[in-house]
């Protein structure tokens, strides 16, 4: 009979528990894998956007009637050639997708927006691209706002021919914001100081480790006002609204879909199907229009050909979106 010391018994018990835990976890995972219904598996292989297109949309791989572009998360410029990028707010990629759409002579685009906004320059560039394609190429653009389409996302939507949203979409927030942290007290507390040698008075404007002076605040406020006026002009042109009316609505507040509709900031309260069907009628397409998503991350496209929902996107999302202060209020029916 083997004699075990107390220590050895303890180690043996730990190993047995660990083995049991692993066996149970593997079993549950395997049960989950083999119990997925066949229809679900077929849909995973067929559709190119798991969460939005498991519906009646006719998704194709060749030339579609309507192109779909998703704009999700913070809108900003990011590197074009990053193979792991899953950022659907990458302005370079969005503009490049719009260029592809133009080159393929596609006549209608649905922009799906689910974003709290982004940088001013990225939003402006996408807006300009849409306006240019509308004017020079006659492409019809509809915007569909989903959970949130505020600020920079609204800037982009205002370039479209029509805007659709649901009654509880959060939109609006027409305005500009800049934040500079004041860490002076923290620095004093922990004994952290910076020595700044600069060529000009305003070179270290926004330095977190000293108080901002009044003239610096004034300077930044002028810049904010300038950018704000650009926003007002863009919305006024895009929506064919008087700029003074836009200014009244643009105090930075958010609106529900219902409120936005009442104030003419959006054109219709409707679903994705409504937007697609109306767009199809506009370009004289009969029956179910063929649609295709134009700015999926390239790695997702590769892996979805294996029927794999890419978890890479989810793991890398925190890196790409960590500049937001991630507190977006959502109204839920729970």
């Amino acid at each position: 009979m083997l004699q075990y010391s107390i220590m050895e018994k303890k180690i043996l018990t730990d190993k047995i528990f660990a083995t049991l835990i692993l066996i149970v976890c593997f079993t549950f995972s395997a049960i989950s894998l083999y119990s997925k219904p066949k229809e679900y598996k077929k849909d995973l292989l067929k559709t190119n956007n798991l969460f939005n297109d498991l519906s009646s949309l006719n998704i194709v791989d060749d030339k579609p009637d309507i192109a779909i572009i998703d704009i999700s998360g913070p809108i900003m410029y990011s590197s074009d050639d990053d193979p792991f990028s899953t950022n659907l707010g990458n302005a370079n990629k969005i503009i490049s997708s719009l260029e592809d759409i133009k080159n393929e002579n596609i006549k209608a685009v649905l922009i799906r927006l689910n974003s709290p906004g982004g940088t001013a320059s990225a939003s402006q560039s996408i807006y300009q691209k849409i306006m240019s394609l509308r004017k020079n190429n006659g492409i019809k653009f509809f915007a569909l706002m989903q959970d949130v389409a505020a600020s920079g996302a609204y800037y982009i939507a205002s370039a479209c021919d029509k805007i659709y949203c649901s009654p509880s979409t959060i939109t609006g927030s027409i305005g500009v914001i800049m934040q500079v942290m004041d860490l002076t007290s923290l620095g004093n507390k922990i004994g952290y100081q910076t020595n700044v040698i600069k060529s000009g008075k305003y070179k270290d404007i926004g330095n977190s480790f000293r108080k901002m002076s009044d003239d610096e605040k004034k300077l930044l406020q002028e810049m904010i006002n300038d950018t704000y006026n650009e926003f007002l002009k863009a919305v006024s042109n895009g929506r064919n609204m008087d700029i003074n009316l836009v200014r009244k609505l643009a105090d930075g507040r958010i609106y529900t879909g219902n409120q936005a509709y009442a104030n003419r900031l959006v054109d219709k309260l409707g679903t994705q199907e409504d937007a697609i069907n109306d767009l199809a009628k506009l370009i004289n397409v009969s029956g179910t229009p063929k649609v295709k998503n134009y700015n999926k991350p390239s790695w997702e496209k590769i892996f979805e050909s294996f029927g794999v929902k890419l978890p890479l996107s989810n793991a890398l999302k925190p890196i790409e979106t960590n500049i937001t202060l991630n507190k977006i209020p959502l109204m839920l029916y729970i």
Partner: protein
Amino acid sequence: MDTLESIYGILFKTESTIYEVKKTNNFYKTILILLIVSFINALYISNSFLASIITTLTIFISIIFLGLFLSMFIALGSNFLGGNASIKDTLEIFIYSTLPFIFFPIFSLFFISKLFLFIWFFIIFSIGLKVLNNFSITKAIVSIFFYIRYFISNKLFTFSYYYLIFNS
């Protein structure tokens, strides 16, 4: 200390296990543990066995990349607070902290909130950093949040058409 012991120890006897693991310094064991976590989750989310193999690799690679990225800043933060951990050691601790996610399929199937798993991850990570750097648990927690501070103070000095809500 072998892999099975380490798995049980990290989940239920974190501090003493990490002391032992720190002594032996076996990175291959860390990789094996990560493969186990990846494979269990891959089986759950995939729709075929072949797909689960590919998904395992993608989960594995994404956790390595994410961990490496976070470890750079967290190691910086912990060094700033008086610790002496390297990026590689911090990455190891990060990988060990993902062990609670082997219960992800069970929690999902029984509709139990996965928040508990994230809290468990955070606790293991904090204790791991504390042991690694030989400082207090408070400093360990602060060094985890150090990387968020870096991004907030450096990245928000741009014009933003942003809708932001601040909660306290």
